[in-house]
């Protein structure tokens, strides 16, 4: 991914705004920050951004109005809506007005980051690739087969889907909720440790008898698949 992607964050809550900016910058993005709706609109129409993170509740001009004005100029920049209320109305309204995704506060930053990356990838990413290789792990996407160090690994279809998700987003921390949503279409917090168990079982097949260990747990955030640094 092009790491010089430029994002605009429109958020009035100072602490949230600062940490979201810092987090996104440390994830490799160039981030501009607007602290109210009017500034946000001004910046969004004046400069090119690859993605806008837009809070709904804003002083002077609320997120919905900002989004409408942006879309009215024909600007199709991806917009991630941050809403405080998770009422269906809010979501539907946001998506209908042209938001590309939404996230309900309070949210985890890892979730925000994962969504931002998903949206940025949506445009040009090569989903059509049919082979992914990470170290000696090879995924044959067309035949839905995985090999490690040349050995065939037997995976169920869901296990393969999980591995594919992790592999496609190599190096990204994927929160449990995102994994549940992408692999099982479970779009709500489940109070079980299904994802942990599924990862453990996948690990047993992919990592247990091989080095390096590719699937890593990021405490409190989620899982990532990458070649360890050390």
């Amino acid at each position, binding site marked *: 991914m092009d790491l010089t992607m430029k994002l605009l964050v429109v958020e009035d809550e100072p602490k949230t705004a600062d940490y979201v900016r810092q987090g996104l910058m440390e994830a490799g993005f160039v981030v501009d920050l607007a602290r109210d709706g009017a500034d946000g609109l001004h910046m969004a129409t004046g400069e090119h951004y690859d993605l806008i993170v837009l809070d709904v509740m804003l002083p002077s001009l609320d997120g919905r109005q900002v989004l409408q004005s942006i879309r009215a100029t024909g600007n199709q920049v991806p917009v991630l809506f941050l809403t405080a*209320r*998770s*009422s*269906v*109305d809010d979501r539907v309204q946001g998506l209908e007005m042209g938001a590309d995704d939404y996230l*309900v506060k*309070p*949210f*985890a930053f890892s979730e925000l980051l994962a969504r931002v990356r998903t949206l940025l990838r949506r445009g040009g990413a090569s989903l059509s690739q049919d082979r992914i290789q990470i170290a000696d792990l090879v995924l044959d996407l067309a035949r839905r087969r995985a090999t490690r160090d040349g050995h065939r690994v037997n995976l*169920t279809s*869901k296990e393969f889907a999980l591995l594919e998700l992790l592999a496609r987003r190599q190096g990204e921390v994927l929160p449990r909720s995102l994994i*549940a949503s992408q692999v*099982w*279409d*479970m*779009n*709500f*917090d*489940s*109070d*079980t*440790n*299904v994802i*942990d*168990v*599924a990862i*453990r*079982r996948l690990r047993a097949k992919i990592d247990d008898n091989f080095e390096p260990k590719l699937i890593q747990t990021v*405490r*409190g*955030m989620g899982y990532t698949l990458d070649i360890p640094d050390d």
Partner: protein
Amino acid sequence: MTDRFVFLRRPASLSLRVTGLVGIAMLVVFLIFSWVSLRLLDRHFAGMDEEELGVIASSVIRALSEVQDGSDAQALRRAVRGHHGVYYHVADATGKALYEPKDGPDLARFAHGVPSATVAAGQDMTIWEEDGRTYRGGVIVAGGDGELSEVYTIAVAMDIGGHLDFIRSFRRIQWWIICGAMCIVILMSWFAVRWGHIPIRRANDKVRAITSSKLYLRLDPTSVPIELEETIASFNDMLGRVEDGFEQLANFSADIAHELRTPVTNVMTQTEVALGQARSAAEYREVLYSNLEEFGRLNRTINDMLFLAQTENDPGNLNLESVNLKETVLGLFDYFEALVEEREVKLEIRGPGFPVHADREMLRRALSNLISNAIRYTASGETITVRLSQTDRDAVISVENPGEKVPPEELSRIFNRFYRASGSAHRKGEGAGLGLAIVKSIVEAHGGSVSALSDERLTKFHVLLPSTNN
């Protein structure tokens, strides 16, 4: 819609209704009574007059038969005595007047204008006005038989002004009586209604005394008139429901405070202690990780509570579509696959596949909570069964798991928020005890119901969802 409400006025007051109705009823009764009594009086006077006129007519006939030639006006004048305001006229067959009263009405003309009749029979009596006076009279043609050889025309009349005056004053008095009686009736009924409402006002005062801190107060249904008993009983029932809801809400607030306080205290303590002295980067990282986990739990609890509040406050907010129940359950089995294999339990589905009218995401969430709950309490080697069936009105989903009997007192509280089975400690990774409360709120938002049963062998959760055709 709004146009309709413009015309909807507040119904008339009860006092007005009762008073008005009683007033109208009394007025009708009085008017009928008045009309009947006037008719009777009129009839009575008519009868009296006819009798008197008949007497006069027969006196005249007797006089005529005595004098025989009929020319003796003196004898005719003498024929009738002791009668005041009575006039008579006698003419022979040729129409020549044999006797004319000195004053009174023009009976000659009357005699010619009115065809012959029999006064005594009370027929064809005529009332007419002449010179400002009112007369009642009749014409009789007599004679040509044994008693009278000649034929005579006799007209008799009497001044009935006195009678009419009496009737008029009677009517006037009657009107005054009616008006007076109406006033009394209206006043009395108004008082009666006010007095009748005293128990209502008294009950009202008691209701007023029930403040939010005194929701335990009830009204005594036996202290009010029998007609109000039902209302008071209903009111007490409603109050009971309000009290329950209020108590639940109060408990819920307390629960929320408690649920949030514990993790917040943990985080605060941990952070303060960590900052108390210089530590290595690894130690700081450890504190941050620990805090993150704690916040993650808090976040889930908050999201669940928000979800509950939304589903309960706005149950209409559903994205209803036709959902195949069996496919949905099998999809969830797929999700739980890894977990059940690790726990060494089995998932099984029985029953036909059929569509239900539901919000797909919500339904998945509810069923997912039921299944994960079942997995949690099932020993390894056992099988959890999801049964699907249909009745005329409902789709029935039951989730059964073998396990220890849940005591009845726990079973009744199992759908309460923050309820956790006694014995089950707050295990890591488990929710805040809102799972089954969420199931209940989702099912109820769909117009269905959920219940739990437990015996020595099995614990069952039954979900009833209104059928598609409704």
